Every structure is written in structure tokens, then in C-alpha cells.
């Protein structure tokens, strides 16, 4: 039981890193970024190539991975997300369509681009410490890399969360998420907010990708599963709710472990989808989400 909890919590940390970014984006733009997994993939590739091909020290390689993710986020925002909030009214009816197609298209584009450039091969990153090292946590033997990676991930996650909760720009993000027009009237630059959000999201996802790349190697489809899991997490936690997405992440991490151990190992990746469908059917607004007024 303890083992399930610990392994679940470790995975949960990485889900949370992805889900927080996804949730932030949903908060300010009310769209789901289907290309979120590709930020993860970018981080994984950067880290794996730096550590394997160029022999960069593992801890140092996390930083460029994060920077690549941030850059990817900023570029995506700059090039593709603007229509979602500039000329807002004209787009009002098209935005869902636009957002789904554009982010889904972007996801396919990046996956296939990676396939084109790096080929369908797996490149696994070097561990933060040699991968064979083990340690004891709460009576469970775990790979030291996993433990260190999840601690590092969790501290970055915490930092990002505090940044959003307490800094000026973090508050601006929250303001825009609650009321875009109101925030604009209060003099908040929503373009900048949107850039910040995409930067943070891209960075978090990329760091998750980097830290996981020794376990789930970098490959074109590396981002697909983590992304899908984080979609499930944000729906479970309530779209746009930051605490919700973190709670949801740990919940899903543990649920999956329970499923893998007690139900079926083959279908371990399928449980997430069941959770998604059940949530949408039973409580569409998620654990902490709110329903919006329509008429």
C-alpha cells in the first residue's frame, strides 16, 4: 500500500507540473492546449541530447531544457494564441474551433517534426544520479533518480505556484482569468499576462519532460501520454482551478497505481480515460471547478 502511495505521488508530481500549466492556460484563454505534451517532448529531447550526446552534467542540463520549453511557449503564444483574445468579439463563436484545431494541429506538427529530425528512435537522458542507485523512502525501495527528480520537480512546482499566488504578475494572471475585460480596464496588459502564462506552462512541462526522460525516453510521441494524463487531471480537478489541478494530479497518480496493481497492468494507461469520462459525466465542473453562466 505504501509503495502504491509513494510511486503514485511521484508520478503525481510530474502530472501536476503539466496540469498546472494547462490549467493556467485554460484559466486565461478558456481553451485546452492540445500541444501541451509537445512542450514536454521538447524538454525531454533537449535534456536527453545534452546529457547523452554532449555529455553535459545532468543537473545543469535541466536549465536549458526549461529555457527551451519557455521559448516554445512564448513562440506559440506569440504566433497562434493572439486571435483568441485580440479582436475578441469577432472571434467569439469561432474560438473553440480555432483553439482545438490550432493546438491539435500544432501537436501533430511538432510530433512529426521530431520524427523527421530525430527519427522514431528513443533517446533516454542520463539520470540525475546513476540510474542504478536505490534508496529507501518510507520502507519502499526506489530509484534515487526518481526521488531526486520528483523533489526537484515539486520544488519548481511550488515556486511557480507561489509566484502566481503572491507576485504582481501572478495576481495579474488571476485577474485576467477571472475577468478579461475587467482586468483590461484595471490597466493589466493581457498580452504580457498571456506570454507569462505560456512561458511558465512551457517551462514546467519541459522540466517534467527532462526529469522523466531517463525513465520515459525522448521520442516523437513522448508527450502524448503525459499530455493526455494532464488533460484528465485538469478536468478532474476542475478546469482553470490551480489547487484543483494539483490535487487532481496526485489523485490520478495514485489511482493509476491502484489500477495497475489491483485491476490490470495492460490497461494501466486506459484508466485515466475512464476517469475522464466518468468525471465529465458525473461532475463536469470537476472537483474544484465552477460552472459558468450561459444565459
Amino acid at each position, binding site marked *: 500500500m505504501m509503495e502504491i502511495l509513494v510511486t503514485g505521488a511521484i508520478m503525481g508530481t510530474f502530472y501536476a507540473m503539466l496540469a498546472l500549466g494547462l490549467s493556467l492556460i*485554460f484559466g486565461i484563454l478558456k*481553451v*485546452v492546449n*492540445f500541444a501541451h505534451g509537445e512542450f514536454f517532448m521538447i524538454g525531454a529531447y533537449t535534456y536527453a541530447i545534452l546529457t547523452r550526446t554532449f555529455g553535459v552534467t545532468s543537473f545543469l542540463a535541466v536549465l536549458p531544457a526549461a529555457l527551451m520549453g519557455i521559448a516554445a511557449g512564448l513562440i506559440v503564444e506569440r504566433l*497562434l494564441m493572439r*486571435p483568441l483574445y485580440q479582436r475578441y468579439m469577432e472571434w467569439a*463563436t*469561432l474560438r*473553440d*474551433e*480555432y*483553439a*482545438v*484545431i*490550432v493546438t*491539435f*494541429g*500544432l501537436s*501533430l*506538427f511538432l*510530433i*512529426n*517534426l521530431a*520524427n*523527421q529530425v530525430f527519427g522514431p528512435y528513443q533517446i533516454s537522458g542520463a539520470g540525475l544520479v546513476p540510474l542504478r542507485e536505490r534508496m529507501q523512502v518510507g520502507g519502499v525501495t526506489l530509484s534515487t533518480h526518481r526521488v531526486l527528480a520528483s523533489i526537484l520537480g515539486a520544488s519548481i512546482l511550488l515556486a511557480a505556484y507561489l509566484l502566481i499566488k503572491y507576485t504582481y504578475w501572478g495576481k495579474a494572471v488571476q485577474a485576467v482569468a477571472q475577468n478579461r475585460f475587467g482586468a483590461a480596464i484595471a490597466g493589466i496588459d493581457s498580452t504580457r499576462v498571456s506570454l507569462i502564462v505560456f512561458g511558465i506552462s512551457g517551462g514546467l512541462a519541459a522540466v517534467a519532460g527532462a526529469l522523466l526522460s531517463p525513465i520515459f525516453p525522448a521520442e516523437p510521441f513522448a508527450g*502524448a501520454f503525459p499530455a*493526455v494524463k494532464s*488533460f*484528465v487531471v485538469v*478536468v478532474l480537478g476542475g*478546469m482553470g482551478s490551480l489547487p484543483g489541478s494539483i490535487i487532481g494530479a496526485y489523485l490520478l497518480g495514485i489511482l493509476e497505481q491502484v489500477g495497475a496493481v489491483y485491476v490490470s497492468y*495492460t*490497461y494501466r*494507461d*486506459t484508466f*485515466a*480515460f*475512464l476517469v*475522464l*469520462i466518468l468525471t*465529465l*459525466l458525473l461532475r*463536469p465542473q470537476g472537483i474544484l471547478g465552477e460552472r459558468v453562466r*450561459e*444565459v
Partner: protein
Amino acid sequence: MRADWRVFNARDIGMVLRISFGAWRRQWLDLALTFGMLILAAILPLGIPSIYWQGVLTVTLVYALASTGWNILGGFTGQFSLAPATFLMLGMYTSALLVHYRGWPPVAGILATLPVTSVIGMVLGLLCLRLRGPYLALTTVAFSEITRNLIRFSYNFTRGDLGLSVPTLYGMEGNRLYYYYTIYLLNIAVILAVHLLMSSRVGLYLRSIRDDEVAAAGRGVNTVLWKTMAFTISSSICGLAGGYYVHFIGLASPEMGLLLQAGFIISMAVIGGMGTLGGPLAGAMLLYPLSEYVRRFGIQYMVIFSFLMILMIRFWKAGIYGTILNIMDRWVTSSGSAPALGSKYL
């Protein structure tokens, strides 16, 4: 809004059959243009003696059919399903399993895809009733991944990733042109049916749901029924395409259900022009042969197409065919009595 069985009433169902030809000039123009393309498609394989390229054209029309099916849901009704490829795959397996285990002739298998995939589509539609936008897209992703995994892991029944071999429709030695014209006729039948549907009042209902579901319900449109219908019809068309496809290539495999394939099908509709009758056909005729062509140079075709799809939706939402249609539409109207028609149908 609750999903409520009482709302499925006879009056609405009967309405599918009653066509009203009103002021649907644009729809007729759309049909005329589409038939222009279909005539081109009729003579195309005759001019290309290569068996390989005739095969490519056949697959092109399979994709065109699937894309037309998705267009009903995504283009006309605004329900952004990412599962068209899954229904293609389900169509493939429906027929393949029936032929393999029950010894049905391929034709019967192909026909059986219609009821089977309609029912599955209807169930998915009912599941998605209250969802829209990103939530709907996510649910369809979940649905397609679950389905694909079920097929992959039910190894004893479906042969998993190895795929299930089935006999082809006209045999291995069969004339390639037979295959081509069969799917060609299926396309014509489906396009005509979609035209009739969309130029009837049902077309208005579906488009009103796309534009504003809440308002549509407030104005008497049975949104529950028509959304479910759109799912059902769309899925069965994709399923039909799959049923045919499996008896062309002779192998059913879960590869078909990848999101990548869904992206391919959707990009055809987007690049051609969503929400038009001929857009998906135009998109398929453009993209599929091109994909075969660039494959020779070792280029991942989806790199190009997804990039094109992003460009199109960003800068040129009407799509290629859609733009031509808009131009002709304006041209026809301004030479007639009515005031100038805007091209802002998007």
C-alpha cells in the same frame, strides 16, 4: 439541459425525410461545384495507367468519404470530435471480424458497418451531449484511445497490433478500376445525401447548434436529438469508409485509429473548407496524393499538412474550396436581383 428520452419524438424524426427547398442558393452552388470535382474524379484514373496511382486514388476517396463524414459533425454542427479515425477503424474491424469469424461475404460486412458504427456513434453522441468545445474534444480523444487499446490488447480476438487479414472485395487479381469506381459511387451517394440533409431544415438546425447551442434550444431546436443525429450520421459514414477500406487493403489494424490519422482526416476538411459540401473531397484529393508523393522523399507528410492546417485556420479560415465557393457565391448573387452577399460565412 438534461438528456431526456422524451425529447426524441416522431415529429422530428419525420423531418429528416421532408426536404424543403427554400432560399438555399449557396447549397446548390456548393453541389454544382462538388459535382464538377466528381466529374474530374471520374476521368482521373482513366488517364493514369499506373496501378499504383490508381490505388492511391482509391484510398484518396476513402479518406474523402471519412472526411465528409467528419465534416457533418465538425464542420456543420460544430462538434469538434477528434475520433473520425476511430470510427474508420471500427468500421474496418466490424467488417473484418464478421468476415473472419462468421464467414460473411465482404459486401455484407461492409453494409453491416452502417448499423454498427451508427450505434456506437450514437452512444458517443449521448455521452457528449452536455459537453462542448475542449471538453468534447477531450472526451473523443479518450474514447478513441480506449477503443484503440481495447482492440490492441484483445489479442486473441483481433490479433492486436499484427492486424487481421481479410479477403478483398474483388479478389487480389481484381481490376483496380473496380475498386476505384465502387468507392467513387459510395462518395456520390453520400455527397448527395449530405446535400439533401443540409439543404433541408435539418441543415439549419445543425448549423444553428454550431453557432449557438443555447439560443438554438430556446428557439425550438431539439438540440439533444440533432446533436445525437449528427454523431450517428457522421460516425456511420466514417464507418462505411472503413468497411470499404479494409476490403481494399485486406488488413485491419489498430494503426488506423491513431490520433495522427484523425489529424489527417480533419486536416483534409480544414484545408478544403469546413462546413461546405465539397471541402472535404477537395481536401482529400489534394492531400492524399500529395502525401504519397512526398513520402518518396522521406518526408513526414503530416509535418506539411499539420503546418498547412495551422496556417489555414489562422489566416484563411474558409479553406481552399470554401474560398472558391464564397467567390462564386458573391459573383452569382451580385449579378442577380438580391443585394451583394458577404463572404463572411467563415
